[in-house]
């Protein structure tokens, strides 16, 4: 479904990604881990269409990924993912309104009633039915991310992109969110790409785990080389050798930043 062919990305002199080749099938849950600045989020931006590849191709069903965000690719960011000026219910209803053509983005009459009913049932699924009239700033971090996920799903995306969605949450709440994401992934038959800093989270959630790292390193020009996918692990394969190799990598990285 998604395929990268010799994909490069640089910002000026800073090489972020180099020689990326991979294919991802529909329904996979790919988790992306790696040190900060290793191009995980850049890769997500390429999938999203807000950044374009510098060289090579990134294909969706054999076609280049559209060069702007669209409803086939949903996104949840770590923050700023929901609209702060709308109540929980409005956030979801607005998402429905955005799918209709028109200039105002408001719904009226029967369409509005339908959208409200649908929004309520979706919010029930993510456990927010008690907070319909609250504004995002009145929600906890976990509830806010639930809302962001509910909203993203309403667009009926084929691909769901998650950019460190649970990075700011407490461990207990994280576990709840993991269950929610896995349930929705199965129910909606999504293809998920999730950036995370937490390698355990990556193993727990993904069907496939990618480690982004720089293979070549020039200490005098740290930006000269980009990162590649150094490990592509089908999860399930959690044998000691792989884990140890990952640990060693993490160690060397810490020692030679």
């Amino acid at each position, binding site marked *: 479904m998604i395929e990268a062919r010799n994909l490069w990305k640089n910002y000026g002199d800073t090489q972020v990604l180099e020689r990326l080749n991979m294919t991802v099938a529909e329904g996979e849950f790919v988790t992306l881990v790696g040190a900060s600045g290793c191009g995980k989020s850049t890769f997500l931006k390429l999938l*999203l269409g807000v950044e374009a590849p510098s060289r090579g191709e990134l294909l969706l069903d054999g076609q280049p990924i559209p060069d*702007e965000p669209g*409803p086939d690719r949903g*996104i949840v960011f770590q923050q700023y993912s929901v*609209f*702060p*000026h709308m109540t929980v219910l409005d956030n979801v209803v607005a998402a429905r309104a*955005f799918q209709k053509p028109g200039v105002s*983005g408001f719904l009226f009459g029967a369409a509005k009633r339908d959208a409200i009913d649908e929004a309520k049932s979706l919010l029930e699924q993510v456990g927010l039915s008690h907070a319909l009239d609250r504004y995002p*700033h009145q929600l906890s971090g976990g509830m806010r991310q639930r809302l962001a996920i509910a909203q993203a799903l309403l667009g009926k995306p084929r691909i769901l992109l998650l950019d460190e969605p649970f990075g700011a949450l407490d461990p207990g709440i994280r576990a709840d969110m993991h269950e929610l994401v896995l349930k929705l992934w199965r129910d909606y038959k999504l293809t998920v790409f999730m950036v995370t800093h937490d390698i355990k989270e990556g193993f727990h959630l993904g069907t496939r785990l990618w480690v982004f790292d720089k293979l070549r390193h020039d200490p005098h020009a740290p930006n000269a080389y980009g990162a590649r996918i150094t490990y592509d692990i089908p999860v399930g394969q959690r044998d000691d050798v792989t884990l140890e190799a990952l640990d060693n990598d993490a160690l060397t990285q810490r020692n030679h930043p």
Partner: protein
Amino acid sequence: MKRLINKTPGLRGRWLLGLLPFALLLALYLGASDVRLEANPNDKLLPSIEQMGAAMHNLAFEPSKRNGDYLFWVDTASSLQRLLLGVAIAALIGLVLGLLTGALPLVTAGVSPLLTVVSLVPPLALLPILFIVVGLGEVSKVALIAIGITPFIARDILRRTQEIPAQQLIKAQTLGANSAQTIVRVLLPQILPRLIDAVRLSLGSGWLFLIAAEAIAATDGLGYRIFLVRRYLSMDIILPYVAWITLLAFVLDQLLARANDWLFPWHKAGHES
């Protein structure tokens, strides 16, 4: 002993400290006024409270001998009408211009440099042009206020629009929103409270332009009156008028601040979501 930088006044202390400078200024004025009037009962420079009260009573509650108007209220109504009209026009133009310029990079490229240059033109220098083009009537005064503060509001709204996190725009697009829907439902509502903030900040200049225009060409208005009675050294009218203008400015500012809290409860609280 606590460090000075850690000492904070309580509620009563804050009120007391806040009112103290006002009381001191008032006492200083009354003392000086007494001293001067003692020396010369006809002194006009520092009139007593009674003199100011009598002068204001004449203007506010006695019909004018010339045309039967209650001058104080006529002045207030004319000035407020000019000010509010000018500010409203500026707010509307500034909002549309700033929002579109901030939201659409193509418009930004076309309008932003012009806006920067225009905002550097001193509005008062345009007043003669306005008088020549639209005459000495109401239009020129309203236009001066509008022209004077529109660039400020437009630039402020432009910047605020660009400050809205890109994530929200991306999110809206992934939900299928087109450009118009994104502007109307994501940007516009979040800009409105910032528009009110911008209007609050520009009211000061608004008053400045109003009084300047009234001083030069008007037949009524708060600014007209104080410049008129200046010829007779009527400090007993000028001082209360200045206080009244200050009070009006204060009330307008507070009304806008309250309106912001009331209309947009999400505005102050949540910037982190």
